[in-house]
């Protein structure tokens, strides 16, 4: 029984199907936002709701404070862009996927439209 367990364990431990992919290479971005349709309502707000509102919910005093509506997010846009592009935010949750960073970056660079 013990031998069977050890064999099973080793088989599971030697996993198959590992890859060494890089998100930046899957989503190459040269800084050109042409063709990136970054919408506040459809892209930016859902990303912020999913990743930021744990710490930046209503009444938050962390960093730029609450990020729950357009005005708050617009006022903090430059800080948000810097934080997510550098990977500093979301705090303790790892950098956002490259495509999400690009949406935020392009939305800020296009003048934070309420679209």
């Amino acid at each position, binding site marked *: 029984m013990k031998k069977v367990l050890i064999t099973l364990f080793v088989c599971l431990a030697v*996993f198959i*199907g590992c890859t060494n992919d890089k*998100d*930046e290479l899957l989503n190459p971005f040269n800084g050109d936002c042409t063709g990136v349709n970054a919408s506040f309502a459809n892209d930016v707000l859902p990303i912020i709701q*999913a990743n930021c509102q744990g710490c930046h*919910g209503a009444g938050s005093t*962390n960093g730029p404070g609450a990020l729950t509506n357009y005005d708050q997010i617009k006022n903090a846009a430059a800080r948000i862009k810097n934080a997510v592009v550098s*990977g500093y935010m979301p705090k*303790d949750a*790892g950098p956002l996927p490259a495509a999400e960073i690009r949406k935020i970056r392009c939305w800020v660079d296009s003048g934070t439209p309420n679209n």
Partner: protein
Amino acid sequence: MKKILVGCLLVLAVVLTGNVTYAQDQDLLKELGSDSVKKEHVKNAFKSSRVIHSHSMEFLGKGVLDVRILHRFGTVDNGIKDLFGLDEANMRFGFDYGLGNNLTVGIGRSNLNKELDGFIKFRPVWQSQGPGSVPFSVVLITGMSLRTQDFPEPQDVYKFKHRLAFYQEVIIGRKFSEAFSLQLNPIYLHRNLVPGTNDDNNIWALGVGGRMKLTKRTAFVVDYTPILSGRQPGTKDPLAVGFDIETGGHVFQLHFTNATGMNEKAFLTSTTSDFWKGEIRFGFNLSRVFTIRKKKE
């Protein structure tokens, strides 16, 4: 800070040496008393199957289900304004089950990245005392995590494999005395997808976990996992210190940590808070065990 660390290591070394002597004395005294001493496995090296965030050398009994609820709150440095971080919470709930005394499986789900995780934990060597005893335990763990949160557009560049990360871990630990246990747990983590072009898909870390019993029901625990190579840029080594409190079938682990992640992939790759700069979070692990299958008489 280095001085404090060196001091701590020295204290640890002194305690450790003393306890080795103590353990040997205990063994010799036991052997004097009886001619028919039997080999006995050493139990309760840790109160829980986790030190704090890392796996411990401790196992569930056969047929025992451990329901685990874990919370990590926001950093305490904002003070009373957000009740020392209690306004923000991340959680993981999980179910561990002892298939045998040396084999445990578990699954869990964290809200961070909506991650599922699972593991198999096996103990080929169990510390024992008496004739033919082994002075330490060796535990092997293999596990994986699965991101269930949707990837952003364009989603077609992402495959299922990009949601996965794997880890392999070995724990070498010893219960030196009733009061003191120490373990080393090297971990290898592989992420199928990393954010940056220069980020390493493979991470090596060497965990150190210790437990010092304070009273019959409480213990002081330390869990530190320095990352040796492949560090995700900007991340820090996860460190947690706290207390285990045992009350009947429950074990409460109350602690302070810089890590929000509650599975291996999360705490090794996402800890950006710096413990030594006061970016500390309060957290707790709540463990409740249920005996599902009773032992045969």
